[in-house]
């Protein structure tokens, strides 16, 4: 794959997700799944609002922000007025539309995506500090969450040649 001589292949990625919007969570999931599909070890660490992606109640209902999001467009490409985005139900509608678009590209819902990643040997972790802060318990999380750990423990997994830490 690598054309550059003397370049060492990537062996492990440690990905940190601290946000809970559809785009931030999917960036993490696509990179994590993409890694295991290439035979690269993947460890995913969810913290702060990123915990929504691994919390049973919220994981399949993630939203994208329709307010203060300059890249948001109407279908067809016209600008999406922020005031429209603030109306009740608009964000939910737009988010549902986004999820259905992804489904058409065979991008799975969050729970199934976690299932795919762990099937390939990827590991999912929750940040202890954030878990305590949001008063969550192990039972609140998807069965795919391997453990609740500190950032120190996460760093301890990030050693070895050919390892990269990615913050989404």
């Amino acid at each position, binding site marked *: 794959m690598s054309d550059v001589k003397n370049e060492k292949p990537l062996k492990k990625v440690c990905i940190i997700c601290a946000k809970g919007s559809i785009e931030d969570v999917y960036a993490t999931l*696509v990179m994590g799944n*993409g890694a295991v*599909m*290439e035979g690269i070890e993947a460890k995913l660490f969810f913290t702060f609002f990123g915990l929504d992606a691994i919390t049973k109640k919220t994981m399949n209902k993630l939203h994208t922000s329709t307010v203060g999001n300059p890249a948001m467009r109407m279908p067809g490409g016209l600008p999406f007025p922020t005031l429209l985005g603030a109306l009740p139900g608009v964000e939910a509608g737009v988010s549902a539309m986004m999820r259905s678009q992804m489904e058409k*590209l*065979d991008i799975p819902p969050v729970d199934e995506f976690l*299932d*795919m990643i762990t099937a*390939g*040997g990827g590991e999912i972790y929750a940040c202890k500090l954030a878990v305590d802060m949001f008063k969550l318990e192990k039972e609140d999380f998807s069965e795919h969450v391997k453990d609740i750990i500190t950032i120190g423990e996460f760093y301890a997994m990030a050693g070895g040649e050919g390892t990269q830490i990615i913050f989404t």
Partner: protein
Amino acid sequence: MAEKVLGGKSVEVTDEGYLTNMADWSEEVASDLAKEYEIVLTEKHLEVLNFLREKQAAGETLTIRKVGKSGIVDIKGLYQLFPGGPLKISSKLAGIPKPTSCV
């Protein structure tokens, strides 16, 4: 492009070793390609390869999710059949182009 002897005949492959013409494929070709990955093809492997060939011929974009829903093998099983590259290695052994999907 390069020529490679697979299944007892000379076959054209890309620089990364994917067959350039999926019609050149046979089970013997697949089993020769599998040797590079130290995979010994079983019935299950062949079922997956044939599934991929069918979907490719139908013009569908292939993903591990699609294979997982095929009823042949689940995703965990797919990783066990083709370690280190469930879609890439299986596509190569199926004689179809390198996958272009990210999932």
